[in-house]
């Protein structure tokens, strides 16, 4: 029974990673940049939802929608102000700017909400489900998380495969110049990618803090790094890859925590990542890049 309960916890944590990883992977796919500020957008989303429920007494669903709206605007503004002028600059310059944005968001959060941790109340105030006479306990949060992850995955796949905008985004990620020649507005495509990624980050923030209810200005950074590894793990730039990578990473983390060592769990997660990358250098579902001389 502990095995099954660990598995469920792993899938649930992995789903959160997967949702965050989707943001990383989409932005990487289309703008070829590592958006290090993504983890901090998660934190902002969680804080907004926290404020909406605690101070404004809004219902949880409304608070999530509000967080998504704020994060979407935030993502588009960040992209427009900080990343857009650097479209043609070296990737390292963009990376450092993203780090600057990350510092900026953390410190603004520190000024607004202070460094004292806030206790996040779960968005689904229901009791856990006990199965097999109390041997297996499944929290409602984990069910909501997994369902949300699957829904997001389906919607996102439909969006990129069926809609005009989604097809345009895929074209831009394939070849920016050719897409532009075909009449696709590259700038709008990139903005929309950031908007979607940031909205997903808000959802991930709320789900993450529902499961682990301590909220501080640096809440987003470690899950951010892990989700980023998950994106690389599954093959960065690939949407199903982010899903597979995230869930595998979550399962590995929970299993190593309960069977090997709590303190070493992060090291084990990263060690698995290294082994995977050495065997398959572009990740599990990544495309092989041909090199031209």
């Amino acid at each position, binding site marked *: 029974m502990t095995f099954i309960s660990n598995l469920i916890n792993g899938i649930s944590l992995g789903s959160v990673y997967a949702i965050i990883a989707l943001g990383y992977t989409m932005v*990487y796919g289309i703008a070829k940049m*590592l958006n290090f500020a993504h983890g901090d957008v998660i934190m902002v989303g969680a804080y907004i939802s926290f404020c909406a429920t605690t101070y404004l007494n809004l219902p949880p669903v409304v608070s999530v929608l509000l967080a998504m709206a704020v994060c979407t605007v935030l993502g588009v503004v960040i992209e427009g102000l*900080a990343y857009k*002028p*650097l*479209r*043609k*600059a*070296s990737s*390292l*310059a963009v*990376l*450092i*700017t993203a*780090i*600057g*944005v990350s*510092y*900026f968001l*953390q*410190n*603004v959060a*520190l*000024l607004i909400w202070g460094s004292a941790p806030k206790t996040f109340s779960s968005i689904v105030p229901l009791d856990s489900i006990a199965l097999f006479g109390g041997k297996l306990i499944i929290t409602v949060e984990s069910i909501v998380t997994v369902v949300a992850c699957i829904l997001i995955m389906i919607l996102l796949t439909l969006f990129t495969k069926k809609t005009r905008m989604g097809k345009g985004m895929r074209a831009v990620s394939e070849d920016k110049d050719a897409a532009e020649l075909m009449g696709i507005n590259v700038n709008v495509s990139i903005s929309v990618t950031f908007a979607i990624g940031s909205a997903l980050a808000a959802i991930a923030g709320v789900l993450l803090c529902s499961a682990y209810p301590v909220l501080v200005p640096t809440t987003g*950074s470690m899950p951010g*790094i892990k989700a*980023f*590894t998950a994106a*690389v793990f599954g093959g*960065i730039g690939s949407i199903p890859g982010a899903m597979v990578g995230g869930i595998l990473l979550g399962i590995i983390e929970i299993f190593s925590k309960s069977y090997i*060592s709590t*303190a*070493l769990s*992060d*090291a084990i997660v*990263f*060690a698995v*990542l*290294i082994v995977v*990358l*050495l065997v398959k*250098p*572009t990740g599990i579902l990544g495309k092989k890049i041909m*090199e031209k*001389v």
Partner: protein
Amino acid sequence: MKKTRKLNKFTLTNIKAYGIVILAFIILYPMQSAGLISNSISGQLVPICTYIVMAISLNLTVGFLGELSLGHAGFMSVGAFTGVITAICLQNAVPAPALRLLIAIIAGGIFAGIAGLVIGIPVLRLRGDYLAIVTLAFGEIIKNIINCLYVGVDASGLHISMTNADALGMVNGQLILNGPQGAVGITKMASLTAGVILILFTLFVVLNFVNSKTGRAVTAIRDNRIAAESVGIGVTRYKLTAFIISAALAGMAGALYAMNFSTIAAKKFDFNTSILILVFVVLGGMGNIVGSIIATALLYMLPELLRGVADYRMLVYAIVLIAVMLATNSEKAKQLWERTSFKLKNNKEKERGEG
């Protein structure tokens, strides 16, 4: 003719790099001894020196080898804890603090170099962002393992355990590394002089390496790996050499850094520290050693200088960082620069024409 000009450029960089460091030392040392520098800044002098060494060594990987490393603090960590353990073990055997510090720094460098070899062999097979993420992963792994490490010393030698301090089974021993609490009971031995000597040593190693045959091969690999391979440069070997040198220097810096505090924990050398050093390197200019030195000194002091705005200092730091990156890298800023320099050039030519 061409050869002499190139030689001049090399000596010029050398003079600039060594000159800045020596000049800063000449100004700062008497000021520190006379007590003219406030305590808060005086305490920052050794960390600044170590971060300058870190920036120069990371510049070797990022600027000259052209590979993005996000785990440089990991090597610093290895060096720091090896250095501390060595220094405490030799407390009775080597009474002179200066010599003990030197041995500790060398030990830190050697162990970090070995870590660089072990990590470099798999890592350097990968490219670009994948290489970056694996260095990040190694940095986190190093931090995590040291967090679980318990080391103590007694009459019969070193005791190492991964479970807890009691499992060491020491008899009247001294606990050196106490898991997540880090190293305790360090004798502070670092000084500004030691820091400056380490910077000069680093400059000597890096500047000569870059201008050696191996160094030129490394820059050739950075500029075009396939072309370099096709003229018979063994890519892996040269990359590994540069990576190990970079790691060893970082380890030495780490050992010196640790000797500046009485306690130090592994969480000091996390991802954020790696990023901080990377910021120094990128803002100073990749492949520009003098730039690394100046950027590190300025940026490290910036939060200190912004104490007047207390709560807002890290915010200001973030804004400065973004603004500098936008000003130096964006399309519009570049066009603006070009236009102004073009105008200046035109004016000069006009003056010349009139004259």
